[in-house]
């Protein structure tokens, strides 16, 4: 069927005449075209079918994102019961080292406490610990609170603050003690054995550098005083000496907060390796998603603008071509 039949039969005669009179290319032109030689295709030619490649790249990216999340989840999940996460301030490098550790409840509390990071013997450090212990009943709560007082005194420390209450069948006891830093690990090990350890947090802050800096500043000021005898320098030296003494004093005593609660529920089982893997992989995926959304927010409008501009320029050019052809006779 001729395409013209779709338009109108009455044009068939006209069309037949146009086809019959069709002009052929002259021989000279034919010879000229025959003389052309196309460049052979390169042995390796990147002929990329983009409509297939783009979805494939997107799928590969998704698979890579899932793979990275899975691998990181497996690696981190396998080590998470031993890891010590660093507090955000320490990560940014704006503060001295400040390790922070969260330990899940466990039956072998003494072993867990043995894993607690101890203070360094050759450096001054501020040591803060928080222990959450579940005890069997109110009688045990009372006894363990007394034990904590006795142990603190025995180790050369003192009770800074305490709160004890036993309403109805419940009860809790909070004790804040200061213990010489050389005995803090023994204290933590003993406190942990009072019941079921349901939470532990330890913070270590190195203050050796600060003390050293203070010492340097004091020495320089004293040298300056020897030369200039300025009374303001003496006052500043006294101030720095007080600051150094206070820092050293804080570093000599560890602060341990012991929170005990009455409860018969056994502590929840620590998450297994599978759970940790899923959690870590989920975190990585969320992070990847955040990065993707961020990139889309930043790049998306530019892509939309670029695409719109491209489309507009093509449409404009096409219309301009059409107008040119219409006015060309």
């Amino acid at each position, binding site marked *: 069927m001729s*395409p013209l039949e779709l338009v109108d039969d009455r044009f068939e005669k*006209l069309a037949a005449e146009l086809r019959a009179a069709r002009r052929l290319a002259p021989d000279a032109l034919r010879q*000229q075209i*025959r003389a052309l030689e196309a460049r052979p295709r390169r042995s390796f030619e990147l002929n990329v079918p983009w409509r297939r490649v783009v979805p494939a790249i997107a799928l590969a990216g998704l698979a890579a994102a899932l793979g990275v999340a899975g691998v990181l989840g497996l690696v981190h999940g396998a080590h998470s019961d031993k890891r010590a996460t660093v507090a955000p301030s320490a990560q940014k490098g704006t503060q001295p080292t400040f390790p922070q550790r969260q330990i899940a409840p466990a039956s072998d509390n003494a072993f867990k406490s043995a894993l607690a990071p101890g203070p360094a013997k050759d450096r001054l450090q501020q040591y803060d610990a928080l222990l959450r212990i579940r005890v069997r009943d109110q009688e045990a709560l009372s006894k363990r609170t007394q034990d904590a007082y006795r142990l603190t005194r025995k180790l050369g420390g003192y009770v800074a603050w305490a709160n004890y209450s036993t309403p109805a069948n419940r009860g809790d006891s909070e004790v804040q003690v200061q213990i010489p830093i050389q005995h803090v690990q023994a204290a933590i090990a003993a406190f942990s054995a009072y019941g079921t350890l349901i939470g532990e947090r330890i913070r270590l802050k190195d203050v050796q550098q600060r003390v050293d800096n203070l010492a340097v500043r004091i020495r320089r000021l004293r040298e300056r005083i020897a030369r200039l005898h300025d009374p303001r320098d003496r006052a500043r030296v006294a101030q720095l000496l007080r600051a150094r003494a206070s820092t050293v004093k804080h570093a000599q005593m560890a602060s341990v907060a012991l929170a005990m609660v009455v409860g018969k529920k056994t502590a929840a089982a620590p998450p297994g390796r599978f759970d940790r893997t899923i959690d870590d992989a989920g975190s990585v995926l969320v992070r990847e998603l955040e990065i993707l959304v961020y990139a889309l927010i930043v790049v998306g409008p530019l892509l939309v603008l670029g695409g719109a501009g491209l489309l507009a320029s093509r449409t404009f050019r096409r219309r301009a071509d059409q107008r040119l052809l219409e*006015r060309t006779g």
Partner: protein
Amino acid sequence: MTTEFAEAAERHLDDVHAFLVYLTGDRSVAEELTAETFARACERWRRFDPRRGTARTWLCQLARSTALDHFRAEDRRRRREGRYAVSLSESQEAVFGEGLSPALEAALSRLSAAEREVLALRVVLDLDGESAGRILGISATACSTRLSRALQKLEREVSAGVAA
């Protein structure tokens, strides 16, 4: 691959030439543009993908693009020289075909290049609406509409020429 191009050129040379004759309305310009089109095709033959269309469609697209470049250059030249008259061949010899009636030849010359190109593709080369639309950058429906209008105008022009 050189053989493939040579075969395609041999097979479709007349089609491209006829298309350009209709588009330009000038035989000598059409010959120049045909040579230019095949020179470009020769350079770009590696880019031709048979999955996206036939060699004839690809060559006609290239021919149209070459002709548009020529028209733009001519348009700029006319503006520069301050002449706005359409420079059609003034000779009385047949341009569009051998043995066409003078009335039809004259009627074709009074059509615009846009009208003649759709006639060339759909009538002379007998392309289907989809292929012609791809060359013109429009849909098959729009191509049919354009063809219908061009044929009606051609018929009017022929009738007017005969009556005169």
